[in-house]
């Protein structure tokens, strides 16, 4: 196995593992904030949870980008031919 494919596999794993840290922290913070808001104002729970879901999906997108980059490295790497 040549070094290009070795590096590709390693960087795919790195992309997913480190790319998951940021979104995980961000999702934790946003859910905590939404919990806080619902506890203070239970009658606004519908609006808050709807906005929360949209926001969570936006945050999750960054992790998904990392996943797509990892898959590109593994399955569609232009350098490996």
């Amino acid at each position: 196995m040549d070094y290009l494919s070795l590096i590709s596999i390693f960087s795919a794993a790195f992309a997913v593992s480190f790319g998951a840290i940021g979104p995980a922290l961000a999702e934790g913070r946003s859910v905590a904030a939404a919990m806080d808001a619902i506890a203070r104002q239970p009658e606004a729970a519908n609006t808050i949870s709807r906005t929360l879901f949209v926001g969570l999906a936006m945050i999750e997108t960054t992790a998904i980008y990392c996943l797509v980059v990892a898959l590109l490295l593994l399955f569609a790497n232009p350098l490996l031919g």
Partner: protein
Amino acid sequence: MTSPLESLPLFFVGPVPITSAIVTTWGIMIALALGAYSLTRRLTLVPSKLQAAMELMVSVLDGQIRDTSGAEPAPYRGFIGTLFLFILIANWSSLIPGVEPPTATLETDAALAVLVFVSVIWFGVRSGGVRGYLKSFAAPNVIMVPLNMLETVTRTFSMFVRLFGNVMSGVFVIGIVASLAGLLVPIPLMALDLLTGLVQAYIFAVLAMVFITATVEDGKPTSREAASNSASNAKEL
């Protein structure tokens, strides 16, 4: 293991390769169209159970459109509702054994995102004219024109990658777990996948709605322009 980024043709119609995603997409389209047609043939003032269920769906959809954008739902109901229902059923079609959701392939998601891109132009031009649509790029300021132009492309791309990544990763993980472990192990993951599919369909529809109404609102004449327009109209009269 086959790559999730490419899809293999099942058979050829002339020179056109037909993948399993296309067959599933057409199946869903035919089912939705037939269902909509047959359910709306005998509408009555006092609704039957089925009609009441459909009316509930439409009114929930209207409420969501009104809540997320503040616009009147009537012009957008058809497009947004179809988008939501199609993506939802496509994401959940993995419940049928042997069927892979068409949204787990690049082509379907790219087509849906391009559809949203085109519909933003369509609704923008329809409400404000070509001039109003072009003016929406200069909101809130002329300095923002290059950024806004870049954003129309990048947000389309991000919608496409978001839907593809979420659905495909679900299918991929279930495939890996099913190949490693036994019969019942992937079931919790499949349940999570159902939730992801619902949330992603909802988010795709909401984002499309937000993009459309943002363009429509930015393209509207400002109060100063409207005042001067009405003043010049009054002079002509």
